[in-house]
């Protein structure tokens, strides 16, 4: 029985004689209770089970070599994503080129790198010297030692970056195609050339479509970097592994790594959400309802019926 103040609140009629009894929703309470009980049991069991080694977790959570691993993970993620985005734009534009050869080349690149596991690609780059001990690039006088050139870190960056470039190119392409064709047409009608149109008109507008999946890819990349442990690059997971290779506290150290991954992912997720909202706002007169707002329709229960507003 909440009072609803209306503009003519003072003259509002009193409630009629009925008492309102709110609906009980027993199903809701039951399912909620069940979930809470299960979650509580789970958490209790996790936190009281000595096998998890929470003391060890606490010990290593701020270990300096774990910290170094985090830095490598973040650095690898940032560099690989940067390479991926640049390659993505280049290959997306190539795939939309008027030139069939250029288009086919871009298509082949994308399909090759999307078609093979990144683990295999990493191993390839890492072992490149087994294939080409000396890299000449066909340029006389150029003799580069592949092993010198491609350190494990370079192999990691190459593997992740080139692979990501293939995925990003599909994202950028979807973004470009999402821009209303009328925009290109208007630019064309004004005499703006295709390249200028792409750069000044299409790509800026495609950003709105490009950014959300790019955020997802970044979060994915964060975890994909865990793969480079196979080529002994000391990122977060590898740092945990070398500790447990000595101390055999495997589970606690995997938990340490997971907690850090979770934390970083959460921060990135929140960042992504707000970035997306900002870009959506930039583009529409009325923001579409957030999932949150859409949900409110489902939640809405009403208890404000008792006090009626006034009439005129």
């Amino acid at each position, binding site marked *: 029985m909440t009072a609803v103040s209306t503009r003519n609140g003072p003259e509002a009629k009193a409630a009629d004689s009925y008492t309102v009894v709110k609906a009980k929703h027993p199903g809701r309470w039951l399912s909620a209770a069940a979930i809470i009980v299960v979650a509580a049991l789970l958490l209790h069991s996790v936190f009281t089970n000595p096998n998890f080694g929470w003391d060890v977790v606490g010990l290593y959570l701020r270990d300096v070599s774990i910290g170094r691993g985090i830095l490598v993970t973040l650095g690898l993620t940032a560099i690989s994503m940067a390479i991926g985005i640049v390659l993505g734009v280049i290959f997306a534009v190539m795939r939309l080129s008027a030139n069939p050869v250029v288009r086919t080349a871009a298509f082949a690149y994308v399909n090759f790198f999307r078609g093979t596991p990144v683990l295999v690609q990493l191993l390839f780059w890492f072992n490149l010297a087994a294939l080409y001990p000396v890299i000449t690039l066909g340029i006389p006088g150029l003799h580069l030692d592949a092993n010198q050139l491609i350190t494990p870190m370079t192999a990691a960056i190459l593997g992740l970056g080139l692979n990501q470039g293939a995925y990003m190119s599909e994202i950028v392409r979807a973004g470009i195609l999402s821009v209303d064709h009328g925009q290109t047409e208007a630019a064309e009608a004004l005499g703006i050339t295709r390249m200028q149109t792409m750069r000044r008109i299409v790509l800026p507008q495609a950003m709105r479509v490009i950014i959300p999946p790019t955020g997802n890819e970044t979060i994915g990349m964060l975890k994909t970097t865990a793969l480079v442990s196979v080529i002994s690059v000391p990122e977060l997971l590898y740092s945990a592994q070398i500790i*447990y*290779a000595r*101390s055999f506290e495997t589970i606690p150290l995997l938990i340490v790594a997971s907690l850090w991954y979770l934390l970083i992912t959460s921060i990135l997720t929140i960042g992504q959400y707000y970035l997306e909202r900002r870009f959506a706002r930039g583009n529409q007169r009325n923001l579409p309802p957030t999932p949150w707002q859409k949900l409110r329709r489902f939640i809405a229960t009403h208890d404000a019926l008792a006090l009626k507003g006034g009439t005129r």
Partner: protein
Amino acid sequence: TNASQATPDASAPAAAAPGTEGAGTVVVNEKAQELLPEEIKAAGVLRVASDPTYAPFEYYDTDNKTMIGYDVDFSDAVGAALGLKIEHVPATFDTILPGLASGKYDMAMSTFSITPEREKIVDFVDYLKGGSGVAVVPGNPQNITMDPLSMCGKKIAGQKGSIQSMEYLPEFSKQCTEAGQEPISIQNFPGQSDANLALTSGRVDAVVADSVSLAYQGKEAGGKFELAEGEDYEPVPTGIALGKDAGLQEAVTEATRGILDSPYYAEMADKWGLPDSVLITSDVLDQK
């Protein structure tokens, strides 16, 4: 047996340069040094790969940056004898030998047992002779030993690429089937610690690996697993691996000879808890 072992006074100045604490007592072996290829001598560095998941031979110190272990000390000693700086490079076990073949590293010490298959792609210099053992959960409820027939029908783990998982276990399994028993279910893991974890979680019944290492690791792991009683299986030479094209074999052999003949060889074994049974004499090197 080796007269050319350098005396301390002969090379005192040079010894200081490559020395790390452990290899401090090793002095430059001039005969070995002369055998070095020119490029290596000029570079002054030897890149040595190890898979640092294999205590006490190679693993990380508590700072998680410095590789330590028997192999690390031994390779430092080789470096000191050759007057070279040693650069320790971590790598996963099954990528080391291919990496050596492609010139990614100059030398590898990761407790490699010498097998004909491996000898096809790299050269070896003997420095130990280790037998294989089997690690089990405390008390060995399943009574697994290095007797092949005790493993029949069991889940046995090894490190992917190790001689135990690539050769012994398939061979044992064959013996089982020939004896009319269940074959062994062989499980390969990327690292020794992955295999050990699978053992402690009961995922596998035993882990087969180098016996010295297993004994040490069982102790380090707080007794979560232990080396099973019984004889070691077929001690085979353990070797320093060298790329075939690197031209290092003669120099390293000489350097190793010097170390094997020095008291430092036994000191290292003591330091890392290696039993005398795994040590060899420099005669072995002459048989090649």
